[in-house]
């Protein structure tokens, strides 16, 4: 069951990313681009979390890559929110 939720989370993030990415084609909207980056990063984070918790349990270091990816993604989202909207 825990494995299944990682799949759900990954699919949700990937779907959101793809929807946002498709809309960036016309007209060019930088906020959508940053949103897509955020959701792609979230999907990658879920994949890395799956590797971390399920494939490599009980290793402290394997939590670091997903955290770094997530921090980079949310920072990209905030960057886009601040510069494109305010």
């Amino acid at each position, binding site marked *: 069951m*825990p494995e299944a939720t990682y799949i759900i989370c990954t699919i949700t993030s990937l779907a959101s990313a793809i929807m946002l990415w498709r809309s960036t084609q016309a007209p060019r909207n930088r906020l959508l681009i940053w949103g897509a980056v955020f959701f792609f990063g979230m999907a990658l984070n879920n994949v890395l979390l799956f590797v971390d918790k399920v494939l490599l349990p009980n290793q402290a270091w394997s939590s670091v890559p997903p955290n770094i990816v997530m921090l980079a993604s949310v920072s990209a989202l905030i960057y886009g929110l601040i510069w494109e909207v305010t």
Partner: protein
Amino acid sequence: MPDLSNLNHFLGGAIAAGYSVAALFFLKFYFRTKDRLFVLFCAALLILGSTRVAMVLVNEPTENHFIYWLRLLAYLIILGAIIDKNRPQSTVHAVE
């Protein structure tokens, strides 16, 4: 070798702060456009942030916990927002 547990907690805290800021933006977007999607995304991000806080407060490294259900709940809210957006109904756009 740095203290990895501290590093993970530090990263988790930064991520939680990031989620909170993004959630605030989405809340503002909701008030501006009255679009339900934004308040749902705001809630999902706040829940994800709370899981990060919980991971620090609860010292157990395993995920067989309510934290894991909270994460799933947040993603289901995001899915729900997407489904809600696609339901056949007249959409309301903010008119200037």
